[in-house]
């Protein structure tokens, strides 16, 4: 996917990139390289006793059955959250696009979940779904359903999926709506004149034209679900019960918290980074082919 018409300046592009690259180098690559280096060390919290241990952290990691369990949990959690938050947001965005005035109002209302900090969102979800104190737990108990995310792993997973999807819907909605609103009405009118009904118009015209946005959101949502969900999981279930909601990113932070196992945690984040880079590269190589610019 390349532009065929471009500018020929040789120096200008580098200059345009310089601000972002400087910031990225100073505030990301420099600290990140130290974090990666840490994966080869065994160190105390304060950094006073450092021992180089080569690949030992990685070896212990891959020998730990708990690590594989967290991989499986991550796959389940990520697929559910990404699929649900993207499709629900797309649904809402298409409906909101139909009426410009309503769109403005809905945008305002839809943004609330995103405006809620993860820790606060966690408090809200516990408040709603706590097994005995939660407001929404009442109807569940009334139906004789033993809702107990404190001891039942599946219930806990359902709860964190709901909370994570809820938080992400507004982000996806906002960008889907922006994408939809930038599709020229003339193209859709032309389709209508040709006799295509709304559903056909959506799948043959709108969706392809929306694909750049969809691709963006797909990549971003995968990243979100792999990396940014620590806050919400920590607030709602703390990774429990018995590790049922311990995703890979959760394990990274939980293990490294307060200098607990900085080396092991760093090794895990390196592995996670490699996995997601690979996943994203696959998306760019194979999925982007389908995107229409």
């Amino acid at each position: 996917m390349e532009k065929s018409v471009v500018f020929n300046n040789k120096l200008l592009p580098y200059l345009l990139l310089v601000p972002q690259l400087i910031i990225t180098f100073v505030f990301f690559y420099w600290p990140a390289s130290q974090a990666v280096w840490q994966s080869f060390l065994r160190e105390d919290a304060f950094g006073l006793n450092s021992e180089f241990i080569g690949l030992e952290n990685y070896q212990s990691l891959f020998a730990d059955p708990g690590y594989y369990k967290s991989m499986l949990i991550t796959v389940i959690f990520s697929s559910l959250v990404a699929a649900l938050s993207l499709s629900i947001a797309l649904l809402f965005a298409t409906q909101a696009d139909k009426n410009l005035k309503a769109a403005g109002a809905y945008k305002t209302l839809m943004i609330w979940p995103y405006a809620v900090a993860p820790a606060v969102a966690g408090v809200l979800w516990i408040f709603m779904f706590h097994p005995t104190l939660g407001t929404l737990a009442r109807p569940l108990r009334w139906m004789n359903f033993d809702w107990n995310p404190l001891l039942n792993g599946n219930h806990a997973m359902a709860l964190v999926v709901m909370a994570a999807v809820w938080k992400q819907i507004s982000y996806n909605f906002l960008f889907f709506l922006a994408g939809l609103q930038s599709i020229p009405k003339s193209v859709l009118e032309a389709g209508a004149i040709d006799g295509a009904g709304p559903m056909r118009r959506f799948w043959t015209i709108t969706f392809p034209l929306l694909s750049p946005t969809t691709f963006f959101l797909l990549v971003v949502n995968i990243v979100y679900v792999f990396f940014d969900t620590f806050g919400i999981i920590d607030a709602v279930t703390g990774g429990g019960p018995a590790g049922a909601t311990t995703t890979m990113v959760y394990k990274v932070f939980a293990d490294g918290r307060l200098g607990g196992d900085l080396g092991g945690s760093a090794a895990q984040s390196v592995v996670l980074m490699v996995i997601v880079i690979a996943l994203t590269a696959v998306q760019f190589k194979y999925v982007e082919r389908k995107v229409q610019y």
Partner: protein
Amino acid sequence: MVEHRPLSDIIAYAILTFGIFIVAFPVYLALIASTHDAATVVGGHMPLAPGGHMLDNYYRAIFVGGSRAIREPVGQMLLNSFISAIGIAIGKIFISVLSAYAVVYFRFPFRKTAFWIIFVTLMLPVEVRIYPTYKVIADLKMLDTYAGLILPLIASATGTLLFRQFFMTIPEELLEASRIDGAGPFRFFWDTLLPLSVTTIAALFVIQFIYGWNQYLWPLLITTQDSMQTIVTGIKKMLYTTDELAEWQLAMATAILAMLPPVAVVVFMQRLFVRGLVETEK
């Protein structure tokens, strides 16, 4: 909609109302809970209508053990939050528009590499590298400064990706026409590309502003002086205790208070940008 189909309008409203319900219900519940007294809230039979304790709860949340504890006036904290959120949003937009422009509209060696260098920053979240990042800030003497609050958070790969996607959809003809007119990269960028990007910039601005506003961990870590605290830290300091969840009605009041500023700003921004939306609608 190009045709007028009443049924589809009704369905649209139904779906959207359902959507609002899902999205807003937790917040509504929190609001209700913040207006009742503790026993009602935790009794498991809280009504869905507001109760009469709103003033009590919010008073306690803001003032009791609160304003004496917060030696800094609320205005200063709001200002800090505002400056850092604006700084982060504008900073991110600025540098990512530039880099996306470079990556899409120019050919140069290491073009793809540059894109990936920027993109990889998403793959190692801040919390993992927090000790070395803190050290960098301390070494650069940026503790307790706005620069320290803003700069580490503006390296945004999502912004670059977003604008890349958007620029890729701009028809080639526009650039050709522009060049025929004798425009160089700056003219094209300023006269053609930027105006077309307003909607995207607006969406990104809203997201990044809220992101910047809700930052808790990073400002907490690098600020020691009260005068540099943000409002989110201040609110948490007022009430967050290990017993917070034992007083659910106050926890809910705190949650509502923490949510108000970003939403207010978003509503305000909407007004500005809906206008822009209407103007650029093709």
